[in-house]
Structure formats: structure tokens, C-alpha cells
């Protein structure tokens, strides 16, 4: 029983950075922009977040720095892909490569450094509950914040006018432009908001999850988050579920290794990616599902007339 509770706890913890990054990318893609630079943004944010948390000794400053770094990287991407209409995919790949290099460069000083000991995060009496306490109520606040962000995003996208405008821009930037909406500006702001969330996810990895700075420490989580947006058919709550599922797969792999199950470690490391591919194949078999949820202008450049 207790092992299961620990596994659930580990799953939530491992799923949180995936969830936050996926929600960020979901905003980007809802306005029609694919940002393949997720991995790069997360790395830059991770090192910036770690550096600031290390210097100030306050992890929340680290998160703020991560968000700002992610937003800046996204703004750079936005200027290129939205204003100059460079190819979104190529620009995103470039951002990933750039982010890998830049973060390694910034991080030279911080390799092997340790953050100050973190307090325990216990809820007043909930944490003492048997099973439930261990599984759900001993997490870092960011774990709960991710859930709140997902719920807030459902409200934003489907209940507010701002959300409607975002969806409209992703559906048909031409029509939105004809109605007088400033499509490129809206896309840029959505990109920056998404970048900030990816940044928070990166900072969570280096400040809370690891907590230390290692080159390339996001280890493909940006790519998994990109796949998760499709897996979730661009819906926030499904994105959250998907993130926990994938976090769970990662944790299960470690757990099985610990139990001495004789499966090659390499195969277990492949699992999340294999699962991504399987899921992508499965949902592309269901066109109506994608049809009603996929932003129609996804990945297409927009030239205002």
C-alpha cells in the first residue's frame, strides 16, 4: 500500500513539469503557432532559475527568473516566426539548439552547486492521513499550482471572450484580421505566455525536482510536452492527465529497476517516447477528434494584407 502511495506521489511530482510545459505549448498552438523550441526554452529557464535561486537563496525568485527567461526566448521566437514569417518548425529547432548551447554556457559556474535545503511541504492535518497524505498532500506548491493553471485555462479558453479571440486567431487568422483583431500581436503575447509557462516548468526541474543544474537536464521533456499537446487534442484537462500518465511511466521505470525486474534499462528509458509515438498514431486514426479540436491554422504562416 505504502509503495503505491509513494508511486502516486512520484508520478504527480514527475508529471508536474510536463503538465506546466504542455499547458504553455497548448496556448501557443491554440493561436496557431507550433514552437518546437520548447526544449531550448526549458533549458534556458532551468539554468536561469537555478542561478537566481542559488544566488538569492529563494526558490520563488528562481521561478520568476525561469518564467522571464522562457518568455524572452519565446519573444525571440515570436519576432522571427510571427513577424518575419520564418518557417515555424525550422525556427523552433534552431531555438532548441540555441537553448542547449546557451544554457550550457551560462551554467558552467553552477555545475555541482547545491541549493539550500528545502522546507517540507505538509498540509496542516491532511498530510497525516494514511495513504492519501503520502500520495497527495506532501508536494511542492507548484504541483497544486499546475492543476490550478489547467483549470484556469479551461475557464479562459471556453468561458471568456479573450479565450474566444485566442481560439478564433488559431482557427482562421485571416478572418480574425478581417474583423480587426491584431493577429500578430495576439500571437506574440500568447507565445510569451506559453514561453513563461515552459520557463516555470524548466525552473521546477532545476530548482525543485533535481534540484541541481546539469547540462541538458530537461532530457527530452520539451519534446514529450509537444507530443502531449496532440495527445490531449489541445484540451487543458486532458493535457494534465496525459502529463501524469507520462510522469507515471517514467516513475514506473525507476521503480521496476529498483525492484530488480530484468528489463534492460535502455528499453525502459525508451518507453515514454514509444508511448508518444503509439498515441500519435492512435489519434491520427480518428480524424473527427482532431478535426473539431485542432486549431486549423496550426503551423501556417499568416501574412496580413
Amino acid at each position: 500500500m505504502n509503495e503505491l502511495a509513494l508511486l502516486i506521489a512520484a508520478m504527480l511530482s514527475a508529471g508536474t513539469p510536463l503538465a506546466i510545459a504542455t499547458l504553455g505549448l497548448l496556448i501557443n498552438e491554440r493561436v496557431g503557432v507550433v514552437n518546437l523550441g520548447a526544449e531550448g526554452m526549458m533549458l534556458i529557464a532551468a539554468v536561469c532559475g537555478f542561478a537566481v535561486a542559488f544566488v538569492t537563496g529563494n526558490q520563488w525568485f528562481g521561478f520568476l527568473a525561469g518564467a522571464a527567461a522562457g518568455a524572452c526566448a519565446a519573444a525571440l521566437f515570436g519576432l522571427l516566426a510571427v513577424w518575419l514569417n520564418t518557417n515555424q518548425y525550422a525556427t523552433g529547432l534552431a531555438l532548441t539548439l540555441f537553448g542547449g548551447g546557451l544554457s550550457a554556457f551560462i551554467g558552467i559556474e553552477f555545475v555541482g552547486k547545491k541549493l539550500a535545503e528545502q522546507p517540507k511541504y505538509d498540509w496542516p492535518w491532511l498530510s497525516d492521513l494514511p495513504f492519501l497524505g503520502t500520495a497527495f498532500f506532501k508536494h511542492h506548491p507548484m504541483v497544486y499550482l499546475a492543476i490550478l493553471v489547467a483549470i484556469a485555462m479551461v475557464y479562459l479558453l471556453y468561458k471568456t471572450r479573450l479565450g474566444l479571440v485566442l481560439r478564433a486567431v488559431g482557427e482562421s487568422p485571416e478572418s480574425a484580421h478581417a474583423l480587426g483583431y491584431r493577429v500578430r500581436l495576439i500571437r506574440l503575447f500568447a507565445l510569451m505566455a506559453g514561453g513563461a509557462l515552459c520557463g516555470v516548468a524548466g525552473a521546477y526541474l532545476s530548482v525543485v525536482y533535481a534540484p541541481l543544474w546539469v547540462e541538458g537536464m530537461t532530457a527530452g521533456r520539451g519534446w514529450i510536452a509537444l507530443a502531449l499537446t496532440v495527445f490531449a487534442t489541445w484540451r487543458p484537462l486532458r493535457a494534465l492527465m496525459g502529463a501524469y500518465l507520462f510522469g507515471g511511466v517514467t516513475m514506473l521505470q525507476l521503480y521496476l529497476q529498483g525492484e530488480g525486474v530484468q528489463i534492460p534499462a535502455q528499453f525502459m528509458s525508451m518507453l515514454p517516447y514509444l508511448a508518444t509515438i503509439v498515441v500519435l498514431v492512435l489519434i491520427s486514426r480518428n480524424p473527427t477528434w482532431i478535426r473539431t479540436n485542432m486549431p486549423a491554422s496550426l503551423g501556417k504562416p499568416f501574412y496580413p494584407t
Partner: protein
Amino acid sequence: MSATAPPPRLALRHITKRYPSVVANDDVSLSVAPGEIHAVLGENGAGKSTLMKIIYGAVKPDSGEMLFEGRPFFAKNPRDARSHGISMVFQHFSLFDTLSVAENIWLGLDQSIRLDQVREQIAATAEKFGLPLEADRPVHTLSVGERQRVEIMRSLLTQPKLLILDEPTSVLTPQAVDKLFATLRQLAASGCSILYISHKLDEIRSLCTNCTVLRGGRVTGKVDPREESNASLSRLMIGAEPPLLLHRDAKLGAVALDVKQLTLKSDAMFGTNLDHISLHVREGEIVGIAGVSGNGQQELLAALSGENPRAPSQSVQLFGADIASAPPNRRRSLGLFFVPEERLGRGAVPVHSLAMNNLLTRHHELASRNALAWVSPARSRSLAKDIIARFNVKAGGDSAAAKSLSGGNLQKYIVGREISAKPKVLIVAQPTWGVDVGAAAQIRAELLKLRDEGCAVLVVSEELEELFELCDRMHVIAKGKLSPSIATRDASVELIGEWMSGLWTTSVAAESTTA
């Protein structure tokens, strides 16, 4: 006008707009009274669109002045125009497919009202103007006529003083046109002025009380269309009456193109699936397919041309041979040629010369017979010159880029390119869409000539008039299903209009006896 009369809702005075190669508007003046339905009549390229864009704030004129409700006013941009009460319904809709009707309308209104208020306003306006709309339906489930209603509703809720409609009936069935006109008359009676842009003479004569005719950017007439005939309006519009077509009796040959129970899923996002389509075209006849766009025409044409080779085996046959999965080149070598709807992009490569564009469909003849199969630029150029001369194409020679030609001339060139290949079967989509009246008459005459020479011709068009003029038999396509065929002499516009909304009974005895 007496001194006490109110100022006109809109007055344009001496508007001139020049583009580098053409004067789009040359000293155009017009005036629209409150509650008047004013037609702007002209061919494609006569300057109608530019004029409307000037009123709507999307284009700045070089000179001239505009008065709105008696005061000088030029809209800075479309948003500015809307906030002053000028609203426009576009020919190509600006709707969001996955959003609901109410959400679509909400996006066009200002920020201060809530979605449930929008729903209430839609219901109230729908009742007042006879525009039934379900507020919560997603737009992609609506028919084209209903989509246009959404656009009009969006305009109406901004309480316009001037409503501009750009070729609103090009996508409607005849019955839907009647409904639209009733709404517009009611709207005008409530005091809204309407500018109605069209090239359809009958519609203007039945709807409008005043008409400004444009030709080549200049005003060639200001008339009361109710007192004019089609012929007199046509003279003002094109400077001549359109030539009459000679329609000889058909000399039917063998079945050339045979489509049997073709069922095919659409590739497109909101495409139409083809549902058991059967039709045949014999040598020496023209068969037409009528229907409102988006009812499966594109999917059917793609399956016939070979662009989509996934049709089930045996469902498309050419002189008895199965071509359902044959690529376009193979179909061409068997004698099936195709004129697509999009001239630029499908029919021709915009930036390439006319001679180079011959290679798209004629490269077999233009290639050398040896193993290298090099194409001969000289032969391609001489072919281009032949087509230009034979089909009277106005172009800067065989090296002119396709995009430099006007719509009508490029269409003449593309149709000419396919006709001069001596097809056994010719499939033509929208042969005269966006083509001026003179070129349209010439293209139709060429198609009739081809038929008289024994070619099987299939014409897919949204223009009923054109189909009635050209075809021996007609089908109607609606929601991916094809009606039985009816001989043109037995058909009426009303009947075809009904069929266009999918209402044909299986008991129709009109299926041709040769079926």
C-alpha cells in the same frame, strides 16, 4: 432633390484610384439615399471592389471626396468604418468553422456585451428580419446559405446605416436568393441603405431601385434598373450585347466517361464525402453538374482528374477501362483532360511563362522521343503562340507570366491548352468563374464546338444560367450525393433550385433513357 430632403446617406464625388498598371476608379460619383437599395453593376475588373474597399476604409483613394450622412468622412480602416455604421458582407466569408454561430457573431461586435446578450439579440433580430439561425450550432455544420445568414446577422447587430453586399448570391440556391431579397427589402424599409454589388442583371432588376453601372473604372450609366431590360443593362455594362450561342442537336456516341457508385471519403478537414455517385457522359454531349459549392464538387473533380487516386476500383471508367486509381498523366494519355477551378495554382503556375505552363499538361507531346525525354522549349513556345492566336488570348506573347493575364484571358488560355490537346473527354470546373462576359461567351462557344466535334464534356458550375446555356443534361450535387440526370429542355430553374437543397425524389422519371 428639394431643400428639405435629408442629405444622402452616402455620397461619393469624383473618386479616382490609380494602380501602377490600371486606373481602378476614374472620376466615380454616386449617391445613396437612406433606405435605398442601390446596385453597383459591372464586370469583373470594372472597379466595383476597389470602390467598395474605399468606402469600407480598406483602400485610400488618390483623389475625390466622400460624404457620409452629409459630412465629409473617410474611414481610416474597416474597424473605423464599422463604428460609423458602415458594414460589409464579403463574397468570401470570414467565419470561424469550429466556433458556434453566437461566438462568431460575438467576435464581430464590440467588447461590452456578453455572450448571452448576443444570443438574445440574435433571436430578436432573427424574428424581425426572417433570418432563422440556431445560435449554438457550430458553423462547420451549416450550409453555405446559412453561413451567409451568419455574416449578415453579424452585420445587422452592429446596427449599420449602410450595408454593403459583395456578390451575395453567388453561393445561394434560387430559393435562398428569394429569402435573402425579402430580408434586404425589409432592412431597407427600416431605413438602412444597401449597396448591392453584382453582375447578375435579373437580380438587380428585381431588387434595386437605382443602379450605377461601371465599365473600366468609369461610370457608364445611372439608371432605374426596374425600367431597363437585360439587353440595355448589358450594353451599359460591356458596351455590347452578349452573343447568342448556337446549340445544335446532340449526336450521341459511345459512353466515354462512366462513374459507377463512387463512394469516397474526403481528405479535407471539413470536406464532403462522396456518396454512391453514378453518372455517365457520352461522346457528343455536354453534361452539367449544378450545386452550391462545398457539396462535394471538389472531391468529385479530384477523383475524376486523378488528383485523388483512391477511388474504389472500377468506380471510374474511361471507354470501359478502369481508371479509378490511375494517375493524371495516365488519364491524359487515354484522352481525359481537365480544366480545374483555380486558374492560378492548379491550372497554371503563376510566375511561369505561358509557354512553360504548357508543360503542366502537354509535356508528353513536347518531349523528345529519345530516352532523355528532354522537352523542347521551341515547340512549347510555338504551341503557346498557336493557343494565343486561335483562342484570341490577350497576352504579352508566349513569354508572359501566367499571373500577368487577366482572369478571362488566362482562362481562355487554359481552356485552349486543354482543347487543343484534342481530348476525348474534357472535364471543366467553373469554366467562366470571374471571367468577363465577352470571354465567357467565347469559352462557352468553344465548349459547344468541342461537343459538336464528338468530345464528351462534363461541366461543373455554380452558375445555373451557364449550365442551362451549355448542357444537354444536368445533374445536381448536394451533400455528396448526385441527383438523377434531367434533360435541360425538361428542367426549370425552380426544379434545379429545389434539387440543390437535396430534395429530389427517387421516383423522378427524368433519368435519361440511355442509362
